[in-house]
């Protein structure tokens, strides 16, 4: 039997909202549902609809360290959304479909490894959970994630910042002009993973033309070099010219052609809040493109309101493309230099803001640059907020193929921290043994 072209996990979560008038509310995919059903897409022989299952806490803890525990920070909706993304992965890996699109909510790409609450509408990172599931369940190794949401996918970047086997590419509206204010060209990954984080900040006013310049001259060649086993698209739809939360000028055709070029194995919905004038058309465009059907007639009724790209914007795009082409070409050398410069450990400290409840987190990661393996790293986290209070934790993350010495050193570090009693909670996220231990 021939595999169908596209598996579609459609889960609009019609009974879930962050709050009644929040952009993440029940109505968000209502018009998309109407359009998909009205078009008859679910009746197409090349498209198979799938029902999400529920992710297990164990699936989530492969990625996240929730403080004090992840279960108390999420709702069933998060389990279903993550479960939907995993169902999309299963459909592809079992060979039932050629590729899959998880059109699910709540979204996830702003959720980082350590979770104190919800940031940028996200609590747990659906793509990251799926990637670790793919590795555990199907032995997938090299993964490329292309984040096409208008906002920098800072959560996904955080989760894979020290992982040389996960290439994270994000293009987004320049962080100087938009939430979350990160995603600059100098964020490249920690020394041993240098170059496997690749940010392409784009100026407001970027159109289909600019987007496809980035794809043709940077994203596609980089993917060809990296040769991933699997390509994942974090398919945010808020680059659309009608999106109320951002300032880009991409059309449904632009998105559909992107999906057509990228040929992602699995696409996952992220943001997109022009729920009435963009999402119905963008989603139909992506679905048709992924199902290898004719998408040429998916054109927004108000397309004449979409402006063309200014020459200043074109120049800025060409510059960032050239800069990152250069970085990519030099990546091996840059990596050697960074490793040599750091010595045994590399460290970074950051302030992380949770916009939903006004939580400020101060986080320090210390990465062991082991010459024998991908090492381990420790995390200290302290979070404060006026109605949140104070929470702190110390944890260590052991990489999937850590050497015996690193495994021991990571556990020792946590024991030592615990003896000093400076933090409230202590964790070992042991990817070698696939478990999260609370010490």
């Amino acid at each position, binding site marked *: 039997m021939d595999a169908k072209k596209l598996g579609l996990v459609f889960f609009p979560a019609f009974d879930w909202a962050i709050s009644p008038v929040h952009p993440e509310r029940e109505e968000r995919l209502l018009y998309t549902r109407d359009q998909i059903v009205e078009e008859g897409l679910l009746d197409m022989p090349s498209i198979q609809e799938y029902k999400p299952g529920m992710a297990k806490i164990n699936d989530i803890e492969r990625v996240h360290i929730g403080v004090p525990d992840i279960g108390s920070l999420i709702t069933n909706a998060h389990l279903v959304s993550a479960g939907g993304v995993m169902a999309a992965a299963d459909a592809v890996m079992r060979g039932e479909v050629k590729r899959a699109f998880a059109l699910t909510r709540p979204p996830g790409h702003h959720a980082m490894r350590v979770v104190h609450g919800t940031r940028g509408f996200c609590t747990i990172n659906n793509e990251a959970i799926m990637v670790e599931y793919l590795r555990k369940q199907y032995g997938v190794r090299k993964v490329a994630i292309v984040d096409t949401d208008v906002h920098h996918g800072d959560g996904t970047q955080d989760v894979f910042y020290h992982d040389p086997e996960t290439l994270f590419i994000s293009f987004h509206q320049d962080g100087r002009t938009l939430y979350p204010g990160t995603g600059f060209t100098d964020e490249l990954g920690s020394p041993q993973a240098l170059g496997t984080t690749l940010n392409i900040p784009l100026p407001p006013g970027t159109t289909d033309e600019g987007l496809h310049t980035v794809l043709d001259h940077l994203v596609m060649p980089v993917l060809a070099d990296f040769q991933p086993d699997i390509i994942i698209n974090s398919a945010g739809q808020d680059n659309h010219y009608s999106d109320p939360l951002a300032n880009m000028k991409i059309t449904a055709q632009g998105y559909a052609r992107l999906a057509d070029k990228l040929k992602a194995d699995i696409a996952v919905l992220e943001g997109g809040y022009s729920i009435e004038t963009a999402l119905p058309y963008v989603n139909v465009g992506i679905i048709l493109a992924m199902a290898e059907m004719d998408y040429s*007639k998916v054109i927004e009724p108000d397309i004449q309101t979409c402006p063309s790209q200014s020459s200043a914007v074109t120049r800025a795009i060409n510059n960032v493309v050239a800069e990152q082409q250069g970085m990519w070409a030099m990546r091996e050398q840059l990596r050697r230099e960074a490793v040599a410069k750091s010595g045994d450990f590399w460290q970074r400290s950051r302030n992380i803001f949770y916009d939903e409840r006004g939580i400020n987190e101060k986080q320090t990661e210390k990465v062991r640059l082991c010459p024998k393996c991908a090492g381990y790293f420790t995390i200290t986290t302290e979070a404060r907020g006026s109605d949140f209070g104070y929470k702190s934790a110390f944890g260590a993350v052991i990489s999937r193929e850590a050497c015996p010495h690193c495994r021991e050193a990571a556990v020792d570090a946590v024991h030592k921290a615990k003896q000093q009693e400076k933090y409230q909670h202590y964790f070992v996220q042991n990817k070698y043994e696939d478990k999260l231990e609370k010490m």
Partner: protein
Amino acid sequence: MLLGLDVGGTFTDGAVVLDGKVISTVKTPTTHDDLLKGILAAIDQVVDDVGSRDFTRIALSTTIVTNALIKGDIDQVGLCIMPGPGMNITTSLPVKPYVLSGYIDHRGHNLVGPRQDEVVAACRQFKDCGVFAISGKFAVRNPTNELAVAQWVQQEAHPDYITTGSGVSGTLNFLRRTNSAYYNAAVWRHFNIFSTAVKSALKARGIGAPVYILKADGGTLPLLVARNYPVEAIFTGPAASVLGIMAMNPMDSPALSLDIGGTTTDIALWQNGVPLFAEGGASVGEFVTSLRAFRLSSIGLGGDSLVHRAQGILKVGPQRLGPAMAVGGPSPTVTDAMVVANLIDFGDPQLAIKAMAQVAIDGQTPREVADKVLHTAISIISQAIYDMLAQQANKPVYRVADIVHGTQFTVKHVIGVGGSAVGLVPLLAKYLGVSYDLPKQGMVANAIGAAVARPTVDITLRADTAEGYYTVAELGIKNKLPGHKFTLTDVYALGKKHLTELATSRGIPLGVTEIIQSEEFNVVQGFRTVGKIMTCRLQIKPGVLLNSEEGS
């Protein structure tokens, strides 16, 4: 006195129900060249049997539409569509459509109107067409473009009949509505000739009872109404027996029914006493439609299914070469196995034993072979049941609560009707570990079902308080809403009012109305709730008439 008639592939069955009791059943051969001949023969036999022609109602389940489609005895349709932006559906339709300008969006905004010059050009291209179908995307949210085009087509081409997509179905799915509208127009003439013939033949016999046509969803339509919605008369055979089962055996626990005939077995799942419906609607060959129909799984296995060996392996069905050898048929069948296994008393047992001996190997006795055949047959049916249950379990749902608290469909009971049910259903029930029933008049469940099927009709009402209007697609209505404080309860009340009006205009008694679908969303603009979108689908509940008086 309710008369039900079901035209099947082999037999035309008739049944008369009086005060909930079956007082007469007849079986006559189906006359494929002229269905009416067989129907009238059945009626004449029934009249003879009950000694009266005073029927309260005659309900007909007929293959007239299905046959017309199979034989290609259909009209050329001038199919005009207004797809607007989106998927290209022109290659997914039974015929090449004429694509017109015009676009209604998902909120029902008329963004682009149709153009009369294009409609004139379409009429020129379709100058040989006596019937037209017009379908626009989101016409169920605003029918004005479809109606405008229909009017222009009427003026320009003067066709005998025009169908609109939103008139055939009030629910979303442009592709399915377009196909439904096309088939409705295609079979319109054929069905109307048949209807006229039925009416005059009955009149000639002095039978004045109103005639109803069975629909695939188990409801009935007055013949007069069915003349405008002939496509509703498609696939009524299986619906008739499901209705018959409902009449004979009310059941509350999750169950499944099997109609095991000569060549096929139709399986239906039951919940809360009613069969489950097919998602989206029935399909005509490869083309999906919006026609509501029971969700049936039809497999090629019945009493007459061929038993043979292929490369030494015992095979059962799906071919049928003729009746059982026990009654002089050409080759071994499942029925022969049932005879040898002492499950039924039918024909000549010696011939049945001979049949089983033909497929025996390695010194098997005929009885051993018969058991193997029956086991294989039960396995095939069980597999179809498991597939159906898996499909039910995997049916997408769109709310978190439905995922978290979704209930598993567990079969507790099996009901068997049809000629071959008596032998196979007890074995199957044992295999599945559930209880079973074999209703006494199961052989004519179909005709009984037709006799007692309730007349039904359904509408979809969608109120958009932010826009300040509501639509009822089936009625071509787009009206202003009374005020901004409109709630879901008001929507139900308004829906019931329109459903009552529609039922009355079609001469359908109201019976029990029910809400079969309902949803409510806040519409937010710029962090402010500006209104609600509420949709509800109401119907007169399909079911069975408990006494004759309700039928008229």
